[in-house]
C-alpha cells in the first residue's frame, strides 16, 4: 500500500510533529478521552520545536480554553502567549533530529508560535456562504429561516465546517502546522463523506419532489407519493417546506464550489502532508470507538499515524500483587499509613492489569497500529505546564503490537 500506511510501524509523534512536510494533524476519538487536550499538547510541543502552529478546537473545557486565551465568540486563531517557552527543559527542546537521525528542523533555533481557535460552526458557514456568492444572494441565504436550521443543527454541519475551517487556515499558508480536533462522535469522520452528505441534501432532489410535484420519480410512485407529501407537510408544516425550497434554489449555484473545496481538503488529508491520531482511554467503549475510527480511516486510505492511549496507570513501584497482598495481611491494622499505601498500590496494579488486558485485545485486532501510552495525571490538564508534560509523554516514542504493554506491570 502507500508509504503513509506503512509508516505506522513505529509511532514517532516527535518526528511527525517536527517534520516540515507534515502540515496537518487530525485527532479523533469518542467523547471524554482527552482529545482536545491531546491536540493542544501536540500543538504546544510543535511550537516548542520552533514551528508556527495553529490548533483548531471544537469544544474545549473552559479552563483549557482560558489557558489558551480563547474568547467566547472567536472564529479566528489567536496567538497564545507562551511565557515559559524559553524555560522549557532539555526534554522539550528540538535536537533537530527525528528518530532515524534525519534532520527535521533547522538546527538554528527560532522561536515557535502557538495560535489557537475554537470553531464557531454558524459563523464558519456564514463566511463560506459570503465568500462563495454575490453579496445580494448571500444576504438572501442568510435571511432564509431554513438556513438557521441547517447552519446549526443539521447532522454533520459541525464536522463539515471543521474541515472548511481547516481548508481556510491551510489556504492562508501562514502556519507550518495545523492541529485539528474533531467533534466527539462517531460521526466525526462523516466529513470524509460530508461533501456527498451535505450535497445529497442540498442538491434538493427531495425538496424539488415535495415542492414541485408532477415530475420524475413522483410519476412512478403516484398516489403513494402524494400521501407522503401530505404526511411530511402535516408534520413539518407547509411554510417550512417552502422556505427549504427557496433556500435550495438560492444555494444551488454554490454547490459546485463547495464540492471542489471539500474535495481539495479531502485530498490534502489523504496526502503525505497529513497525519491522523486516534485517541482513546483504556475503557471498552472508548477502544471500540477507536477501532471504528482506525478501520474507517484505513478504508479511506487516510494516513493513520497511530493510537494515543490516554490516562493509563502504569505502576510506579515494583511490588507484585501477591507481595502487596501478603504485606497488607501481615500488617493487619497496625500501620494505617503503610496499609493505605499498599491498598493504593494494589488498586493501581488491578487497574493496570485490566488496562493491559484491554490493550492486548485491541492489539490483536490492530496488530500493525502503533500505540503511545500517556499516563494519567491526578488532576485535569488545563494549563500550559500540564500540556507540556503530556506533550513530553506523547513524544517519548511508542511501540507497535503491544511490546510496551507486556513489559509493564508488577502483577
Amino acid at each position, binding site marked *: 500500500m502507500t508509504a503513509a500506511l506503512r509508516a505506522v510501524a513505529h509511532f514517532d509523534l516527535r518526528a511527525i510533529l517536527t517534520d516540515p512536510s507534515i502540515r496537518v494533524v487530525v485527532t479523533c476519538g*469518542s*467523547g*471524554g*478521552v482527552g482529545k482536545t487536550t491531546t491536540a493542544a499538547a501536540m500543538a504546544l510541543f510543535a511550537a516548542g520545536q520552533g514551528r508556527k502552529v495553529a490548533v483548531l478546537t471544537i469544544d474545549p*473545557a*473552559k*479552563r483549557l480554553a482560558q489557558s489558551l486565551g480563547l474568547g467566547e465568540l472567536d472564529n479566528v486563531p489567536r496567538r497564545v502567549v507562551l511565557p515559559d517557552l524559553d524555560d522549557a527543559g532539555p526534554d522539550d527542546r528540538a535536537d533537530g533530529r527525528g528518530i532515524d537521525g534525519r534532520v527535521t528542523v533547522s538546527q538554528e533555533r527560532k522561536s515557535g508560535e502557538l495560535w489557537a481557535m475554537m470553531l464557531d460552526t454558524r459563523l464558519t458557514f456564514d463566511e463560506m456562504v459570503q465568500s462563495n456568492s454575490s453579496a445580494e444572494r448571500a444576504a438572501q441565504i442568510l435571511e432564509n429561516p431554513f438556513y438557521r*436550521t*441547517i447552519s446549526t*443543527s*443539521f447532522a454533520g454541519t459541525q464536522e463539515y465546517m471543521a474541515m472548511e475551517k481547516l481548508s481556510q487556515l491551510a489556504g492562508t499558508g501562514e502556519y507550518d502546522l495545523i492541529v485539528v480536533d474533531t467533534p466527539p*462522535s462517531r460521526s466525526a469522520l462523516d466529513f470524509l463523506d460530508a461533501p456527498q452528505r451535505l450535497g445529497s441534501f442540498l442538491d434538493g432532489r*427531495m425538496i424539488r419532489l415535495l415542492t414541485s410535484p408532477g415530475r420524475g420519480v413522483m410519476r412512478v*410512485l*403516484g*398516489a*403513494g*407519493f402524494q*400521501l*407522503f407529501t*401530505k*404526511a*411530511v407537510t*402535516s*408534520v*413539518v*408544516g*407547509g411554510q*417550512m417546506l417552502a422556505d*427549504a425550497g427557496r433556500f435550495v434554489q438560492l444555494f444551488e449555484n454554490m454547490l459546485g464550489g463547495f464540492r471542489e473545496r471539500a474535495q481539495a481538503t479531502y485530498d490534502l488529508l489523504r496526502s503525505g502532508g497529513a497525519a491522523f491520531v486516534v485517541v482513546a*482511554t483504556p*475503557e471498552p467503549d472508548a477502544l471500540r470507538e477507536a477501532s471504528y475510527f482506525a478501520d474507517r480511516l484505513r478504508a479511506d486510505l487516510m494516513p493513520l499515524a497511530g493510537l494515543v492511549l490516554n490516562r493509563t496507570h502504569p*505502576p*510506579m*513501584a*515494583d*511490588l507484585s500483587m501477591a507481595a502487596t497482598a*501478603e*504485606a*497488607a495481611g*501481615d*500488617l493487619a*491494622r*497496625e*500501620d*494505617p*499509613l*503503610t*496499609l*493505605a*499505601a*499498599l*491498598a*493504593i498500590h494494589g*488498586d493501581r496494579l488491578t*487497574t493496570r492489569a*485490566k488496562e493491559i488486558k484491554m490493550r492486548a485485545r485491541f492489539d490483536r485486532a490492530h496488530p500493525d497500529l502503533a500505540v503511545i501510552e500517556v499516563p494519567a495525571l*491526578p*488532576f*485535569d490538564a488545563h494549563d500550559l505546564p500540564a500540556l507540556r508534560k503530556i506533550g513530553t509523554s506523547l513524544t517519548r516514542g511508542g511501540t507497535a503490537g503491544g511490546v510496551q504493554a507486556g513489559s509493564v506491570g508488577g502483577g
Partner: protein
Amino acid sequence: MSVSGSGSGSVSGPTSGSVSGSGSVPDSVAAAEPRTGSGVTGWPRAARRARLHVVTGKGGVGKTTVAAALALALASGGKRVLLAEVEERQGIARLFDVPPLPYQERKIAVAAGGGEVRALAVDIEAALLEYFELFYNLGFAGRTLKRMGAVEFATTLAPGLRDVLLTGKIKETVTRRGSDNLPAYDAVVMDAPPTGRIATFLNVTVAMADLARRGPIRNQADGVINLLHSEDTVVHLVTLLEDMPVSETLEAIAGLKAANLPVGTIIVNAATVSHLDAASLTPAAEQRLDTERLVAGLSMAGIDAKPELVAGLAAETAHHAVRVLAEHDCRVQLAEAGVPMLELPRLVDGADLGGVYELADDLAGQGVGR
C-alpha cells in the same frame, strides 16, 4: 521528596517508627472525608414518586451504565421497569452483552426480589414510519421513500421533529396500561441525550415551532409537554468528579430549571474511594508523606524497603491524594446546585455487567427503589 536521608526531612514524633501496640488506630483506613460536601444526599421524595426517570450526562461519564443500574435498583422487589435508549447507539445491548435491540421491548434482566427490566432502543426511522403508517397507510411508497432517505430528510428539515418523536415514544410507554388497567411499567428509565443537549431535547415546546399546527405529531407533542412538566418525571444528571463534566452538569441544571423541567438528583459516578484518612490527605498530596513510617511499616511486613520502592509507593500515594482532594473540590462545586446527590464508587475491575449489579445494590443502599 527525600527518602534516602532518613529522618532529615520528615516529621518525627509519636507517629513515626513502630506503631505496634497502638490502640488509637482508626477502625478503618478508608474514606474519612465527607462524601458530598455540604450538599443534600439520598433519593428525594420527588424521585420516589416519579415514573419517568430521565438520565443524562456528558459523554464518557458512564450514563448508560448508571441508567441500567438505576433501572435494576428500581425493579427490585418485583417491579416492572423499562430501560429505553434514544440515541441509536445500542449502548444497552452492549452493556448487557446481547444482540442489538430491535424496535421492540425485550426482557433483559431480572432484578433482586423478582423484578424485571425490559429494554427498548427507540429507532427514529421506525418511530416516524410508525406514525405515517398509522395515519396515512403509505404501504409501498413508505418503504421506497425510506430507502431514498425521506426520514432523514424530514428530520433534517425540522430537527425538533426528532426529539418530539423520541419523547413521544417514551411518553407512550409511561402512560400505557395493561389489560388490568394498571400501568404497564412501574417506572421507565430513559438513557437520554448528553447534558449539552438535554434541555433542548426535553423542551418540546420549542421544538413544536418547527411543526405543523395540526396533525397527529402535534397532538403527541402536547401530551409529551404535560408529562415532562408533571410530578411523574424527574431528570438525573450523571457526572464524574472532573472539571468538565461538573461544569456541564451545573450548566445543564440551570438550563433544565430555566425550562421548568424537574431536576431529580446528581449521580456522581466512579468516585475514587479514599484509602487515606482525612488528616493524611493534604500531607500526602503535597509529597510530605511520612516516609519513615512507610519504611518501618514495609520492613515490619518483611519487605525490603529499598529507596526506589518507597519513593514509588509515596508517589502513587501522592497521586491518589491529589485525586481525592480534587474530587472533593468538585463535590463542593456540585453541592452548590442544591440538588440531592447520590454517589457510586469507581469500580477498580471495570464497569462490566457484574459491575452494573454492584452499582444497582449501591443505589438501593442509598434509598433508590424504596
